[in-house]
Structures are given as C-alpha cells and as structure tokens.
C-alpha cells in the first residue's frame, strides 16, 4: 500500500509524520507524485505563471492604446498579442485555475478522502496541461495567431499565421480539463467519508461537481470544433469557409456551445470558493444551503442553452435570438439566488474583516455589476449597440477578472495556511486587496463607457475622441498590475520566512480544516466521521470525529 511507510512511522511512535511538503523533497518526488495536494500545488504554480504572462500581454496592449494612431507596435503584433492574451488567460489560467489548483487540493480533504479517485489520471492531467501549453507556446513563438481567442471562421481558416499549433494546444488542454472533471465526479460519488451525505457536502464541492459536469459534456464539442478548423486549414475541406462550400455561422454555434458553458467553468468554482469563505469569515452557517447548492447545478444546466446570445447580430433568426435571450435570463436568476444567500449568510454572523473578506466584498460587487450587465446584453435590442464593443469586453472582464480572480485570491489567502502552514502579513494583504479592487474599477469602468461611446473591440487604431477613456483605463491597469506584484512579494516572503501558522488559524469549520495544516500525505490518520453540516458555528465542537489509533 502506498501509504504504509508513513503509517508504520506513526504506529512506531516516531516523531510526527512529515507533512505532504516534506514527504520527499527531490524534484522527482514532485514530478512523479500522485498526491492530490502536490498536483494541486503544481497546478497553482503553473497557472500563476501563465496569469503573469497573460497579464504582461494585457499591459502591453494597454500601453499601445494610450495613442489613437500607430504607436509602440504594429497592427499585426497587436492582433497577435490580444489573441495570446485571450488564449493564455482563458485556457491556461481561468479554466484550470480554481478547479485544478484549489479543487485538487481541498476537494478530497473536504470529502474526508485520502486522495482523488484516480491519482495517476490526476497527474496525467497536469502533464497534458503542460504539453498543451508547450505546443501552443511553440506556435506563439513561431509566428503566433492573429484570430482572437474565438478563432472565428473563415478568418481563422484563411489567415497565414500559425493557427494550427495553437488550436492543437487548446485541444490537448481540453483533455486535461476533462480528466480533472471525471476525477472529481467519481471522487464525489465514491469517496465521501462516513456521515457525509449529499446534503452535507461543502458548497465548494457542489460547485466543483457542477463544473465537472460541464467540463465533461462541453469540452469534447470544443475539441471537435478546433479539430475541424485544423482539418480545414491543413486539408482544404470546406466545412466553415463559404468559399469552399462551408458555413461560417456553424462554427460560431459549435464554438459557443462549448465556450459559453466554459464561462461557467470559470465562474462556478469561484462561487464555490466564496460560499466557503463567506461562511468562514462570517462564522455562520450558509443561509440557504440547498438554494446555493442547487443553483450551481441550475447554472450548469441552463448554461448549455444560452450560447445563441453570442449570435444576436450574426444572422440567426429573430425568433431564435429572442429564445436565447430569454433563456440567458435564467442564469441571472440562479446567480441572484446565490448573491442574496451569501449576503444573508453575513446576517447575525461574527464577521472578521481579513484579506479574504475584502475580496469577498469585491467579488459581490463585481459579480452583481458584471452579471447584471450580462443580463442587459442578453436584452436583445440593447445588444445591437453593445455587441463587439468595449462594453462586452468590460462585462466579461468584470465576471472573469472581477469575480473569478477575486475568488481565486480569496481562496489563495484562505487556504494559504492550509497549503503551506505559514502566515502572511495581513496589512500587506489588505493594501493589495484595496489596490486591486480600485485598479480594477479604474480599468474597466472606462471600458464600459467606451462601449457606450461606440468603440469596437480589437481595434489597433481608434478615432481621437476615444482617447481620454483609453488613457484612464491604462492608468487603472497599471494600478492593478502593482496590486498583483505586491501579492507575489508578500506571499513569497511568507513562504520563505513566514511564521508557522496554527492548524486552523481562521477557526473555520469547513471539513478540510479537520486535519493538520499542512496535511500529511495521507490526509487523515483515520477517516473522520462527519457529524455536522459544514460551517455549523453554534458550538465549538469539531464538525467530525476522528478516532486516533
């Protein structure tokens, strides 16, 4: 048995079992690990790296947009750069960020399991991610792609840039996503601890479960679509290019059938993180547990029937446009249910304004504003003016950066002691959080206004009257960038020199805190028996019983 060595140490009364970080410190022990926690850390490091790569691209784009005319780079470089920014941020950061990094780390802990159901597949998932990233990176260096991350045909099937390797990279990363989803679903079904019924599962698990369903059902469609584009480019078959007898709108249907649900792959896990942290920092049971849990499944379900709102002015029928517009409203309803329940959770709680709570406040504001502008965009007639303008850019950055990245940061600070057993400097945390929330608003509120003003997206040059708002947005982006750099610095310092944190520094009653921080490789000496709902703060009793052998 894999864990026998550690177990025998414990039985022999040796000093404490080494935690997972110290159980083998060679590079190979990391590269060949099957420990879900180590895979989670590997993902965390990789996605953070790509977040900064994508962020650097964003800053270069904003730098160019300071001037309305040609400036700093030429049109083709600009087009390649916004394509890479989109691809890196979506496929290499947002989609794997929360599920693969935090999901891998805490989901088995929350279920009282020793690992995920298929530890080898889990490691394979990380390698597939790296291979996909490497293939895409090869394409980026050898000419890049200038299609935008949406790869719309027939532009993508005719442009002379290196689209094929980047499509192939995204194709491979898709499999990484599918494997993680598969692993989570089987883990949730088979490895729950005694006493942990479905209606006692932590809300993060519910949202990770809903995410996994989308990953498994939608990603294959993207894989097929990207493959068809590659075949069309390399083999000359006419499937999407009308010059060869294809239909360009078919591509948009197939692409958004994945990519709209993919938006929920990016936001659902973020909602799960908020459900956990809002309870922990309000020291309060989730207000409306079932409502939050089932609205996750609701979003996963309805998310499959809204893709047509990306095609309202693309030549689909007026009736179909209306149907998709109406269906899109339901996502808004499910999200509203969650928002009200999170705010309700704070009611009569015992709120501690730590760094994660600052991100929770930012998250709520960005999610409501970004979400309601999303519903506004689905209000068909308004979309005509806003479609493909900076309003859309600002809207989805509010959701993807505003909401998802806030949740990522909330989770990172909340689980930092759990992952590394170290404490970070709270003051720096709050300063960085304020800087990020402020900088984010300063970046994207002007972009909403630019969209109203009529500036289309993906514009290398623009008329002079758009300049003031563009300069404001660039200034905000600079502030935002500083915020992230501060985080890297103080978390880096905490990792190296931080003082040892308590096992449960927040006094949280999430199930993942039932074990030590950082946990031993096998998570629990004895599988706990769950006796309470998660985050039950009526008493100080632990939420589960661990029989120590």
């Amino acid at each position, binding site marked *: 048995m894999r864990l026998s060595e550690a177990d025998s140490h414990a039985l022999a009364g040796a000093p404490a079992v080494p935690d997972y970080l110290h159980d083998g410190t060679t590079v190979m022990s990391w590269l060949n690990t099957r420990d879900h926690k180590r895979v989670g850390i590997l993902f965390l490091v990789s996605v953070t790296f790509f977040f900064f790569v994508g962020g650097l691209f964003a800053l270069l784009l904003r730098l160019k947009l300071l001037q309305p005319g040609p400036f700093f780079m030429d049109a083709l470089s600009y087009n390649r750069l916004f394509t890479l920014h989109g691809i890196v941020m979506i496929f290499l950061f947002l989609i794997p960020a929360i599920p693969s990094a935090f999901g891998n780390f805490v989901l088995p802990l929350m279920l009282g399991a020793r690992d995920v159901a298929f530890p080898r597949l889990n490691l394979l998932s990380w390698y597939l991610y790296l291979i996909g990233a490497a293939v895409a990176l090869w394409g980026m260096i050898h000419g890049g792609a200038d299609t935008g991350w949406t790869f719309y045909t027939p532009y993508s099937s005719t442009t002379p840039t290196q689209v094929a390797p980047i499509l192939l990279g995204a194709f491979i990363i898709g499999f990484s996503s599918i494997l993680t989803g598969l692993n989570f679903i089987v883990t949730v079904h088979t490895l729950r601890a005694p006493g942990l019924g479905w209606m006692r599962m932590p809300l993060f698990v519910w949202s990770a479960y809903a995410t996994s369903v989308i990953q498994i059902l939608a990603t294959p469609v993207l894989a097929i679509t990207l493959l068809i584009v590659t075949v069309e480019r390399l083999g000359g078959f006419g499937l999407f290019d009308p010059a060869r007898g294809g239909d360009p709108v078919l591509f948009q249907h197939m692409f958004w059938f994945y990519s709209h649900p993919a938006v929920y792959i990016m936001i659902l896990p973020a909602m799960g993180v908020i459900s956990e942290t809002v309870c922990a920092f309000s020291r309060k*049971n989730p207000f409306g547990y079932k409502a939050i849990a089932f609205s996750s499944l609701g979003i996963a379900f309805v998310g499959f029937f809204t893709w047509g709102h990306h095609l309202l002015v693309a030549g689909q029928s007026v009736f179909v446009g209306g149907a998709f517009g109406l269906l899109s409203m339901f996502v808004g309803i499910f999200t509203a249910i969650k928002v009200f329940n999170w705010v309700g959770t704070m009611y009569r*709680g015992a709120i501690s304004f730590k760094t994660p709570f600052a991100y929770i406040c930012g998250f709520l*504001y960005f999610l409501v504003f970004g979400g309601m502008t999303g519903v506004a965009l689905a*209000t068909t007639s308004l979309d005509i003016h806003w479609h493909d303008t900076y309003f859309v850019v600002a809207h989805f950055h509010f959701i993807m950066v505003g909401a998802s990245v806030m949740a990522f940061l909330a989770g990172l600070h909340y689980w930092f002691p759990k992952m590394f057993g170290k404490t970070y400097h709270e003051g720096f945390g709050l300063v960085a959080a304020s800087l990020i929330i402020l900088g984010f608003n300063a970046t994207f509120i002007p972009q909403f206004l630019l969209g109203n003003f009529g500036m289309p997206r993906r514009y290398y040059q623009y008329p002079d009257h758009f300049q003031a708002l563009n300069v404001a947005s660039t200034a905000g982006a600079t502030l935002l960038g500083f915020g992230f750099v501060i985080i890297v610095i103080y978390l880096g310092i905490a990792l190296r020199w931080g003082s040892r944190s308590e096992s449960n520094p927040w006094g949280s009653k999430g199930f993942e805190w039932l074990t030590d921080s950082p946990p031993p490789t096998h998570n629990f000496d004895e599988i706990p028996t769950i006796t309470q709902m998660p985050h039950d703060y009526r008493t100080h009793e632990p939420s589960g019983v661990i029989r120590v052998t």
Partner: protein
Amino acid sequence: MNDLLRRLLFLPDQASTFAKDVDQLHYFVILTTFVMSTAVGLTAIIFFIRFRRRSESQTTPHIEPAAWMEALFVGVPLIFFTAWFFLGYREFVRQFTPPIDSMDVYVMGKKWMWKFAYPDGPNSINVLRVPAGQNVRLLMTSRDVIHSFYVPEFRVKMDVLPGRYTQIWFNATTPGRYQIFCAEYCGAGHSIMRGEVIVLKPQEYEDWYAAQRRGLADRQDGAPTALDFAPPSGSMVDQGKRIAADQGCLKCHTIDGTRHIGPSWLDLYGRREKLSDGSVVLVDEAYLTESMMEPAQKVVEGFQPVMPSFQGKLTAPETAALVEFIKSLQSDAVRTGPSEGPAYAPIRGR
C-alpha cells in the same frame, strides 16, 4: 433628462429613429444595475459593521431563510429581467423588420473597405449617402471574411457574412456625417475599416443622386463629363492628395515608405518592382494607371491581391492627378521623421 443621462453614459448622438427608444431602455437597465450592485455592496458593509466579530470564541445562531424570502430572491430579479426582456425584444423585432417602403442599398464588405451600390447604378466606396427621414434597408454581403456594419449614432449593427446576405434598416433623423465602423475582427486593417454615412436633406440627396445618374449616363456615352471641365483647384499634386484621401487610397498605401497593405507610394515612381509572377516592371504612368483600373493584373511580390478596381470610379483628370501626386512623392521631398502610419482623414469635428 434624456440628454443628461446620455452624456453621463457617454452615449453618442441620437441620429436615427431607434436611438431614443434603445437609450430609454438602456437608462432603465443601467440604473437598476447600479442600484442593485451598490445595494448589495452596502448591505455587506452594513452587516460587517453591525455584526463584527466581538471575540475569537464567538458562536452564532443557525439561521435559514423562510420560504417567502426564497420566493423574493427568485421573484424580484425575475420580474426585472423579464420586464427588460420583453421591452427589449419588442424593439429587437422592430429593428430586424424592414418596412415595405424602404429604399434599398447594397453593401459589400471586404478587407478593408465598404462598397455601396444603389439599384439604379451609382456606387461609392466607404461613403454612404442617404436622405434624412427615409427608411433605408441595407442588403449586405462580404467578399472574404466576416465583417460587421456598425453606426453608433444610429444604434445599428449587423454582421456582414460571406456567402449570404444579411439585412438591417434604419431611418436617419438628423442630417450630418456619421462614422461607420467594422465591429467584427477581420485582420490587420480591422480598425481602419471605417467609412461614413452622410445623411443629406431629402432635396440635397435628390440632387446628388440625379447628378450621379447623369454622370453615369454621360460616361456610358463616352462623352466628357462636367467634372472633366471643372476648373482645377490647386496644383494637380494637391488635387491628387485630396483624391487619395477621399477615395481611401491612403488606408492601404502609405506615403512615407512604411510597408502596409499595399506598396508605399514613396519613391514608387521610377522604381523597378518585382511582380508576384517573377517578372519585373518599371513603375511609370502606364503601370500606375493600369494598377488603378485592373489592380489584380500585375501584383507586386509580397502583397495580397486585395485592391478593388477603380474603373468607373475615377475620371481621367482624377487619375492623372493621382499619378502626379505619386510622382511627387520622392524621399528627398518629404519629411524624414518617424512614421505616423497611413493617413486617415477624420470626418467629425469633435
């Protein structure tokens, strides 16, 4: 009130019959969004102040929402969202249902220009002239990739697809000049694929249209047109410069030596250019004229055959003026400072 909100939200002028109706809904939706997101944010802050953690060992009661609360959580957003939807969809259907009495104009998008053609014959590049107060239907298609026809002041947008026709309509209320943008990403020249709509008073439009028709008829007879006898304004070089800006030549050809979509005009005259079929041609008056009329015949190596023909668009004096302008562009005669890229003539005096 309308004007104040419009300015606060940076919405452009309202120059079509749709604009005001769309904006009314816009105000309602955006104001609700502001109120809701602020309310949620404020509630969180109020709860934080009211329910601060008083001691590290504090416990809290177990509270679950009553059924009526859950109903409220679903009901309130449902009412707002469906109200938005039905108001919006009514307008959406209207925007996609051209009235029977509309005047038709054919639109063709290509990398990176707009061509407009009126059923009776006149056509133009990048400039669409329409009468105020008239329903206009655009029948649009693309010759290469997907483009999108967008006029912010009209609140009108529609994708322009290759291999099929799409349509939109509008009724411009205010005479003036409005910029056309391409809103669907289409490559290196996407952001300069701009044109303009000139909304004329009905009588002015009639005059312009009649002149176009007459010009067309004259030209078919081979007889000189009125333009041929027009007194020259300024030197031929100056005329050529103006024509180059009006006709959109400078969107693809630079005059400072920078490589763009087409060959730069600087030092072009008198050069020996290698063509895509490997042969070499001397750039003289004949080659320049041929390239304007039949651009796909002799394409310079390394460039795509994307230029449209100007046969019938340029009169003989105009062609001559353009040739003279190109001839004047020799590097010892122009500034040597950094590139400012392709010239674009701004059309609005903001």
